[in-house]
């Protein structure tokens, strides 16, 4: 096979694009292959986006790739509207909440600041390759040591507090600090969204901190809508790849990763075309990459068992409602562009809807977040706890049942909404799985759990981006530091490949 390319990136999701950009800017001849007809992966389909809230691209990455930071991170932070069972929604920006009593406002500000400090200490590891178990390199250990130091620098009391809460659950923490209600509901949504965990599940404080460790120019945990929306972010990343000499091909599905002499040798497309490259980065989920694209014949039995057993049961469905005329809120006022609406009136409500999903049922009252796109006149809903392994399967009936229960909850906050809907669409976790190479339809490619993070992400023995077949790297959300729209896995994976010599 000819050596036209130095590297092939499977999947033009944001992580794939970031990885490709890092390699291309180092002079590597890269080719990005995307099965869908658009780039950007879960961000990219303008007609029905999996992830309409693309907020957390690491500023360091934007800086290093010389992206237009003002455009990507310059907007004012997104305001969250947390809806209770009645009355006006609470309005949350960062550590500030309005619409609740003065004591809760005060307690919340303190809690938010404290969690932010703790999250920043953990966040040190985000752009580091996690240390290997048993055989960590000096550089990897240095990253871990830096995190330990940051934790220690929090002060004795706060470090102890962090160690006390880090493996516990959001329910206990939030009940202790701010009490249950729409504010706790909004925070607990941050802690559980995308995962198969309720607020009472152990480890949900860690996922909350994980989310808060994402940074913007406005501080920790804050998300910003880039100027121009998700398309602007995707375009910025793909332009970065192409301007550095990288090539992007859409509508070409990779069928197999080619292996020669126990090294990655390129890929074979579904069309039968073979493309050679000594370096392959896969943005598909670990299970898809290893079990389907690479093939079990190249892997050891124990490795495959750990890969198969990796928790990646998707819980999120996406619903779009086309609404010609958005009605007013029940308390008066209009929804504005860029606001994030959270419908989780209490932590109890989240836990109750998780209970149904645990056993393969749809919750009677789903909890969800939503945004309203005023130009497209579209309400985009991300509904939590709609299990991938739904009893009876994701039939049209199941989808319309979900749509009506979501609409019923929306109708309470926005009276008259249901009669304003002109069209609606539902994308189940199964649709996400088949459409985006994300095994289990999990939008983080793998559960963010303490046993699947850091040196255990995506699973033991696969945590340093490098796969057992030399020249093959995981660069998607399944790799450390995992999910969200951070770009960090792609960035870290590309740097790991470069450290190894770029083959």
């Amino acid at each position, binding site marked *: 096979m000819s050596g036209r390319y130095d590297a092939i990136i499977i999947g033009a999701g944001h992580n794939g694009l970031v990885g490709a950009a890092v390699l291309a800017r180092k002079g590597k001849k890269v080719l990005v292959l995307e099965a869908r007809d658009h780039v950007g992966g879960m961000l990219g389909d303008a007609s029905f986006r999996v992830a309409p809230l693309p907020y957390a691209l690491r500023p360091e990455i934007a800086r290093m790739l010389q992206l237009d930071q003002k455009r990507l991170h310059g907007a004012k932070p997104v305001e969250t509207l947390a809806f209770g069972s009645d009355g006006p929604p609470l309005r949350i920006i960062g550590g500030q909440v309005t619409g609740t009593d003065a004591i809760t406002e005060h307690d919340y500000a303190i809690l938010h600041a404290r969690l932010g400090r703790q999250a920043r200490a953990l966040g040190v590891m985000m752009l580091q390759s996690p240390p290997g178990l048993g055989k960590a390199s000096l550089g990897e250990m240095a990253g871990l040591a830096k995190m330990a130091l940051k934790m220690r620098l929090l002060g004795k009391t706060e470090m102890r507090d962090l160690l006390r809460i880090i493996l516990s659950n959001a329910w206990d923490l939030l009940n202790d600090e701010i009490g249950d209600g729409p504010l706790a509901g909004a925070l607990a949504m941050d802690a559980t969204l995308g995962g198969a965990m309720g607020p009472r599940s152990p480890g949900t404080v860690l996922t909350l901190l994980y989310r808060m460790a994402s940074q913007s120019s406005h501080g920790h945990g804050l998300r910003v809508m880039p100027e121009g929306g998700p398309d602007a972010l995707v375009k910025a990343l793909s332009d970065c790849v192409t301007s550095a000499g990288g090539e992007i091909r859409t509508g070409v599905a990779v069928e197999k990763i080619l292996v020669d002499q*126990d090294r990655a040798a390129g890929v074979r497309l579904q069309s039968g075309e073979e493309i050679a490259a000594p370096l392959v980065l896969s943005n598909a989920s670990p299970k898809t990459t290893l*079990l389907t694209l690479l093939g*079990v*014949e*190249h892997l*050891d*039995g124990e490795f495959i068992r750990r890969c*198969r057993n990796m928790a990646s049961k998707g819980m999120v469905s996406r619903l779009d409602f086309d609404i010609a005329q958005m009605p007013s809120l029940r308390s008066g006022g209009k929804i504005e562009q860029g606001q994030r609406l959270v419908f989780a009136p209490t932590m109890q409500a989240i836990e109750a809807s998780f209970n149904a999903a645990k056993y393969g049922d749809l919750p009677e009252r789903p909890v969800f977040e939503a945004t309203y796109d005023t130009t497209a006149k579209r309400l985009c809903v991300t509904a939590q706890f709609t299990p991938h392994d739904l009893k009876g399967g994701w039939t049209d009936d199941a989808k319309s049942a979900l749509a009506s229960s979501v609409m019923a909850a929306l109708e309470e906050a926005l009276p008259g909404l249901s009669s304003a809907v002109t069209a609606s669409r539902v994308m189940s976790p199964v649709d996400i799985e088949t459409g985006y190479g994300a095994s289990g339809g999990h939008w983080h490619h793998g559960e963010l759990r303490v046993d699947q993070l850091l040196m255990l992400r995506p699973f033991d023995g696969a945590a340093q981006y490098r796969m057992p077949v030399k020249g093959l790297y995981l660069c998607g959300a399944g790799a450390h530091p995992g999910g969200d729209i951070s770009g960090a896995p792609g960035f870290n994976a590309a740097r790991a490949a470069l450290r190894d010599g770029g083959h």
Partner: protein
Amino acid sequence: MAAKAKPVPQVALGLEPGPFHDRLVAHNRQQAWMNWMGYASPSVLDTVEFEYFAIRNQSTLFDISPMCKYAITGPDAESVVNRLVTRDIRKLKPGRVAYCIWCDEDGNVVDDGTVFRLSETEFRLCCQEPQLSWLEDIGWGFDVQISDVTRDIAGLALQGPTSCALLKDLGLAGIETLKPFGIAGFEIGGAAVTISRTGFTGDLGYELWMEPGDALKVWDALMPAGKLRGLRVIGYEALEMARIEAGFLLPKVDFLSAQTVLRADRANTPYELGLEWLVALDKPHFNGRRALVDLSKQTPRRKLVAIEIERDKPAHNALVYHKKTREVGQVTSALWSPTCKRNIAYAWLEAPYGQSVTDNLWVEIYLQKEIRWQRRMARCHLVAKPFFVHPRRTATPPADY
């Protein structure tokens, strides 16, 4: 009035009677039973010396039904077995058997056993330790059926110089042409029997495989035929002597399976066990290959060696010293070999002993003489395995003894 013998409870301990149990009970004068994979297996039936010498001079029957047996069949069976074991199984022809080991992802040995290739797409694996879940992991994603056939197949080891003659007496036409590690089908006592020229004694011998329902029929045909051939039923203790002479390793005695060790450094690589001749690094990926490639370039941490010890006392559980002072290893299996007339043992020696340093090695033997323990330092020498080698093991056709 003569007292009538009461029926004695045959086997206590909650052990399962195997397919030959009714006949074993009748021969087991010592009523010495041991637990072999839940089956009642005789450790010694009469006298271990008689049983041992029958292996080397006559013929012996040993019930090997408790051995774990797995059927691996289907279009991908060859790929799966080749992925499991370290040998290149593509070279194993149908109707042949190969001794194999298999390793975990760190290159440590999980178990050893024999692979029977019954046809292009049918394999049988015989081994000591249960391996079903391991095999299912190895076979995951392949078009293959894996099933535990331990209880579907009865096995008898017929071993000893007169074993071929005995089978010929039974009218098994062409048995003398069966080569070592060959498999062929025959009929004994009206029952279909698959015979492989394999065994654990290092001597001329066969292993007979049949349906459990036919077990007693086959036994009852063998025993009278064996009368003039000195056929004797034996237990594990006699076999253990023969297997040490024959150079075979025993899991749990000479090494531990990587699956069972608690201390990670107790597991052993093929290079440490001296089994590198079983590792085909040049075949396509198999379990543990990448680790084994690295290990093949390193000096093993320790080495299992065969030693011969001066003087006659067997070196059970002995420590090994360099220059009589520095402790460098220990003995796992030891025997005064009655046939070789040599004092033999296997020992683990920590690197560099047994590798670059091979002289001035001593074993400390412990002897009890009338409730008083004595220590004796005896010089030992590294020797090649096996200790017992006889041309009749491989001669085809075997001579009529």
